[in-house]
């Protein structure tokens, strides 16, 4: 599973998250309001996934494993 609820109650993103993972991420965030997103094991995220993070602005546990996401995308998601 690239998107799953982990033992800590956070939504964990792992490996490369494709466009279909956006829907899964969205429903987990809707089912668990206030849940954080742990993307430390994330090796890449499709724009659709980034878009859900942008719209939902969950608390993030990072940095993601992917250097591009860490350098360019994470700062935009943690800035309020």
């Amino acid at each position: 599973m690239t998107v799953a609820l982990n033992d800590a109650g956070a939504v964990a993103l792992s490996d490369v998250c494709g466009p279909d993972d956006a829907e899964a991420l969205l429903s987990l965030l809707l089912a668990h309001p206030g849940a954080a997103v742990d993307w430390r094991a994330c090796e890449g995220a499709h724009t659709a996934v980034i878009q859900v993070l942008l719209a939902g602005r969950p608390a993030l546990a990072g940095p993601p494993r992917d250097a591009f996401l860490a350098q360019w995308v994470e700062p935009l998601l943690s800035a309020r």
Partner: protein
Amino acid sequence: MNEFLEQFLIEARELIEQATDDLLALEEDPADAERLGGAFRAFHTLKGAAGIMEFTAMARALHAAEDVLAAARAGEEPVTPALISDALTCLDQVVQWLDATEASGETPVNADAEADAIVRRFVRVAALDPVAEPQEDRWAQALLSGAPDAAARAELAVRYIPHPDAFLDGEDPVALFRDEPGLLTLAFSPAGAWPDLADFDAFRAQLVITALIASPTAAFRERIAALGEQVDSVELTPQPAPALAGPAGELLQGQLEMLAGAAGDGAAGRAGSAAIVVANVLRRSGRADEADRMASLAAGAAPAVVADAIRQVISGAWAPAPAESHEPEIDPKATPEAMARSLRVDVERVDALVNLTGELTIATNALAHVSAMAAEGDVEAVARALRGQHGDLERLVRELQRAVLNLRVLPLRQVFQRFPRLVREMVVSLEKPARLLTEGEATEADKTIVEALFEPLLHVLRNALDHGVESAEVRAAAGKPPSATITLRARSEGDQVIVEVEDDGGGIDVARVREIAARRELMPADELAALSDVEVADLIFAPGFSTARTVTTISGRGVGMDAVRTAVERLGGRVSLHSEAGLGTIVRFTLPFSVMMSRVMTVEAGDQVFGIPMEAVLETVRLPRDRIVGVGTAQAFVLRDRTVPVIDLAQTLGRARPATPRAQANLVVATAGGRIAGLEVDRLGDRMDVMLKPLQGLLAGTPGVAGATLLGDGRVLLVLDLQELLQ
């Protein structure tokens, strides 16, 4: 020329043609939103292409035009003839740049002044209406002011608004920026406002991505160009880095002085250490990229290069390293001929060639097998196998010839699409309202024919407008619509291509043609009187004939129509004329679908030039006349133990022989139909490719002659039918 550049030229020319087409249609109907959109998209794509080639002047000029077209699309700017003229002028300028690029293999360097002139046209247009200010760029301005550090180095501002269905279409917009080394800033914003998560549609792209990029890669530019209207980009000029002052500056100056010292042993080492010192200075000043680039010079760069770089750092002109070099490569072999216009070919036709190549390879391999058989000495088997192979190869070569000829087939659109613009100009200068309709642009013909049709068609169109179409008053009196219609049409008929220019003008004034023909003494009066009206009308094709009452700049120099007939006949076609008084004229070109080019060797015999098909020529021999001996009534000579009959070409073809035979005989040894012969000629000439036309009229059926063609100097070249001669 660089392959990139070549592709750019082809595409740019296609886009210009498309944009011109749309603009002209728009002039007819300014409310045509589809044409306006088409023109806008063509300008947008052209701008993107110019960006990819780093041809900033062209991108700037096109951007100005695109802005105004965008305003027109948004209804903020009316579509006026002035706007269309300005847009066409912009395209003219671009064509000039493209021509210069094609000629030199590089984008022109001093195009900025010309670009400024174009930009001013559109600023003027935009200034008439304050609403139409280039709003497009405001986002870029905001982006730059939000990131001053990056702004100093940015060369490109990009705004990417993915289409709502982009995800469903398999696009990953952010991935566009992933591998871009020059990425300076990246930002996201919602296309509208982020909806509540409960209402959020994860499959719909609803964000805007903006970015600033230093030295964008060509691949990146290509990708954004491919995204079309989803991406807007603005070219930026990076600000030079600040000059280094104080102790750092002195340190650099010191390095420079050291490098200026005597060259020789250790110069390279000194240059290396100087580069490292300067790199450290830069790194301490927080200019890491520049430091890296300078450090890269430490290993092996020539002292002069390092000194030059240091001087640039001192003056502040040292720019950050480009990610890769985009300098157009200049191909030293690129001669004007090599730069001849390229040809776009249907993939299917190329595939056919690829398949044939495969089959040829197989046939070649089979030959290796035959040679192995020959080594074993089984002569009969070898002969049998060779016969089979020869048959296969013959078939393949024939198919290859056909496939290659097919590559040369072009639609007539290639030539037709140049005329609407030209007719528009003629209409303006002649003040005769007329419109051009084109039909059958998809009709195909050989490239040689399509490309050679432009001039003759232009002459005919000029004549139709100038002489055929009446003035507006005359048309009104005749009850015709004030605007004339000229139709340019093409169609295939069997092996032939018919191209017609039809006008609804006054038709040919036969009485006037008669009068002029008499005055110009084109033929004796009694012969002229005996001609039918149709034959008289045909006299407009006679050399030196011109019916124009006043010489206009458009036509009327009396070179038009006879030049047309010559040009079409050179292509192996003919021109005919149908005219009805008061109703109009049709000029019809009947052309062969393809031009058969034959390679011939030219020879002279009895003061006439003959062509011998190259495929028949075995060799040329020069030998003392006494080696030619009489055999009965015929003559022959011995060539490598074989007796070869000699045919005196001049005599055989009924030409006069020189009084005294030369001491040395020139012989062309040729073969046809399984026979071999030495053709005695006076002189051997060049090899050339000629378009062979069958003999017509009185010459038809001349024995031993397969066809004729015109030489560049106007002489007639008779191409020999060796099959017949060697019988």
